[in-house]
């Protein structure tokens, strides 16, 4: 199964200087009634972007400002993606064109979901994060290059910074490998573990006796 492949890309920044942005803001719950992954771009940050009648807010929310059009890196506050486990959040971010998020930390489930959808959750030290937030607000022509193979980020001043990513996720994204396919390569071990650990849970049969 094809998984998203990530390599090197250069794009602009979008500033979102809010802490603890929760996944209910990223995609409000009423957009979770879909049964596929498509079409979530308009659901992204919906209630921060749209009036009750469906028109865009004036002035627009930051991701809708024309000056940030096409910018693919979101510079967000600490603990981005807190709350609900909905994978609709990275689906919507991806559909809108966000390729990476820079923050000082991420919520665990969001981080895991983002990586599975080819969106890089990059943790930065506070000073560099603050610098890039400032650049995102002030220098609209500024771009950042992210090189996943090298796990580096080149900032508008030309400096190159290493960013942390675990080697496994890095390899999966570079090669476009799929976690489910990876687990399935170990099906012999899974069977052996199941045999050794029969357990007492059986959802099909009440009062199952073993």
């Amino acid at each position, binding site marked *: *199964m094809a998984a998203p492949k990530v390599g090197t890309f250069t794009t602009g920044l979008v500033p979102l200087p809010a802490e603890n942005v929760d996944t209910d803001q990223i995609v409000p719950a009423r957009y979770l009634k879909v049964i596929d992954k498509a079409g979530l771009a308009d659901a992204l940050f919906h209630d921060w972007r749209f009036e009750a009648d469906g028109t865009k807010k004036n002035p627009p929310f930051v991701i809708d400002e024309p000056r940030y059009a096409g910018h693919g890196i979101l510079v967000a506050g600490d603990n981005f993606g*807190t709350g*609900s486990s909905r*994978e609709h959040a990275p689906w919507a971010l991806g559909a809108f064109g966000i390729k990476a998020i820079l923050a000082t930390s991420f919520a665990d489930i969001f981080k895991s979901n983002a990586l599975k959808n080819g969106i890089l959750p990059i943790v930065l030290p506070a000073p560099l994060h603050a610098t890039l937030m400032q650049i995102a607000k002030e220098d609209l022509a500024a771009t950042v290059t992210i090189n996943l193979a090298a796990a580096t980020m080149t900032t508008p001043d030309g400096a190159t910074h290493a960013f942390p990513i675990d080697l496994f996720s890095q390899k999966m994204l570079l090669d476009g490998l799929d976690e*489910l396919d990876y687990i399935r390569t170990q099906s012999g071990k899974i069977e052996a573990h199941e045999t050794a650990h029969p357990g007492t849970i059986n*959802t099909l049969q009440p009062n199952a006796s073993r």
Partner: protein
Amino acid sequence: MPKTIIEKIWNEHVVDQQEGAPAILAIDLHLVHEVTSPQAFTGLRSRGLKVRRPDRTVATADHSIPTTPRNLPIADEMAAAQVKQLEANCAEFGVPLHGWESPNQGIVHVIGPELGLTQPGATIVCGDSHTATHGAFGALAFGIGTSEVEMVLATQCLLQRKPKTYLVRVDGTLRPGVSAKDIILALIARIGVGGGTGHVFEYAGSAIRALSMEERMTICNMSIEGGARAGLVAPDETTFAYLKGRPHAPQGADWDAAVARWRTLTSDEGATYDKEIVIDANTLEPMVTYGTNPGMGLPISGTIPDPANESDPAAARALTRALEYMDLRAGDSIIGRPVNTVFIGSCTNGRISDLRLAANVLKGQTVAKGVRVMVVPGSADVKRQAEREGLDKIFRDAGADWREAGCSMCIAMNGDQLAPGEYAISTSNRNFEGRQGKGGRTFLASPLTAAATALTGVIADPRTLPGMSR
């Protein structure tokens, strides 16, 4: 080397651990619901895969279904299609389903324990962040995304990195009017919504030991609100007494063997944790949130904090924005804030003991004029039990609305929601902007505080209720 219960459960479930890669972790129980599973079943279909262990998988409909009488069709076309899709997926892949008209239907985190499927020492996952609820039984239970739902359906395994451990010790005795919900809201107010990121909480201490299983579930449920994917309580006699005789619990000799094994699931003397915090139960008050994340909570006698007193500019900015959204003024007392709606329910506080507490407050009383009070049982079974005890009559006589089981206004996907600008006091778990309806404003609190507030229409201290002072 002494080990924590978290490490013991982890080690028992590692199928494979390659250098530099996450572990392949075996999953004992996979709970499925209509909202986060359709894309996973689509994935299985397109890969030509089956559900590996239907006997370790169970589904229900809870998030998007209406809480109006079950003989009516689901009016929302998208919700109806989603529930229908769940039924079709379960039928096609052989997954047992407690569908929306089933006598066992309910919020996924309420029915797992009720049916005896939630068992000590198990690894339990669900495409829902409140899966930590099941940790109350000494299980390692956590929420996952839909890609992971697909992985577990296909392989009954997940890729996971070993979590760090965080001991939350709560000692002492809760005072009258203070409950499990107040313990967890107090913890989150102290450590913040990101305080437990990367960790699993172990709740321990005399105050935790004294709690019933349902109260332990309330605490574990909100672990994610403190940033931890999972939180658990080591099993004890309270756990075994709750489980014994439940439909899917082991029986006879199997039961004895299981209990003997479960008794070993404690943290060893001298086991160390990556982080620790101690909370004194004696000093806790009822807690209420005032802001737009669950960490923005305060003791009910407190006043709304002032951004001017925040030394961290980011925290000051967040507080300013939260008070703007909530339309609250720094320095005001939280007691006395008017509410439009009282919501009693959810996977946090929708179990029978929660309803008994609320009913006890509302018995023979009338809810405040103009206040909508919604009582939503966590499961069809909780509803039946409440009706056997006459709680439904108490709620109705008081002027409250008695509904069918589901997530309801906790997530506001099903039409149960606040209007823009309205205030709710809610026994649920999240007060994010718009969580209970676009533009709605949420105060999180315990069932006791919510019920006391229902009587007055303004946030009220449950310790002032008759019978609460000793």
